[in-house]
């Protein structure tokens, strides 16, 4: 059973060509992960690779935020509103940074329960739900604006004694 702790995936010159399969090898339903790029890559190469990762994830409908996040570690100001980007590994959430060791019997029992929950979440179309939440939030914002306008008109009519 996989412990839901951070996995490190490093992109180097040797595995650059198999970037897509490298990303596919990360099981984001089981554990969070972060991708780092080798220091000998150019800025343009890193941006290109980040772009191809983002494209691949969105094309395949991979869930990279829920239940476990996938981070890109880069100093560049690359932002395509799709990926979670951090400047260094130290700025990654501490929640998933726990020292790894063999789980004991009690911990294994919790892990079993976690696995069942993972399978249940896997069956849910999380990406669709995130989209639904986005549209719902837009509607709620519209509702707030309209309510504000309605309230304004009501106070005006009250003050004018209409």
């Amino acid at each position, binding site marked *: 059973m996989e412990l*839901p702790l951070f996995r490190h995936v490093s992109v180097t010159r040797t595995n650059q060509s198999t970037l897509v399969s490298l990303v596919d090898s990360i099981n984001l339903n089981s554990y969070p992960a972060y991708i780092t790029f080798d220091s000998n890559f150019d800025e343009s190469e890193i941006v290109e690779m980040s772009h191809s990762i983002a494209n691949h994830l969105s094309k395949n409908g991979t869930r990279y935020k829920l239940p476990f996040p996938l981070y890109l570690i880069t100093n560049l100001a690359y932002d395509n509103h799709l990926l979670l980007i951090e400047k260094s590994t130290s700025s990654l959430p501490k929640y998933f940074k726990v*020292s790894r060791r063999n789980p004991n019997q009690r911990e294994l029992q919790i892990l079993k329960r*976690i696995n069942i929950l993972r399978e249940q*979440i896997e069956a*849910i179309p999380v990406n669709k*739900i995130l989209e639904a939440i986005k549209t719902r939030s837009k509607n709620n914002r519209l509702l707030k604006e*309209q309510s504000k306008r*309605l309230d304004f008109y009501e106070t005006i009519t009250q003050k*004018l004694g209409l």
Partner: protein
Amino acid sequence: MGNDKNTKLGAFKDIENLYGPPINKGHDNLARQSEFSLYNFLEREESRLRKIELFCGHKVKTLEDFDQTPTILENQKRMLEAFENSLIDNMLNQNANIHQHLKHIFNKTMKLK
């Protein structure tokens, strides 16, 4: 001063010996913390996943199936239109309060009698 203090505290040395050397609790606590950190993390993780499952699997689905926002928006739109129409009608009327108030303001600023 330091020697004086030592001689004064000398009487308590025998009592101190009875209790033995101080126990270093800090090291034990650290070991315990690292022992339980994984267990605590797994417990928190279980509750986090349970919440995600409850939210995405049940709550959002119910909200999607029985979404009231479009109906409320439609109702509000109708009410807004009605309010705007009534306001415009009242403003266009020559005897409207707003005209009286505007007349008063203009007369005051232009000093007309």
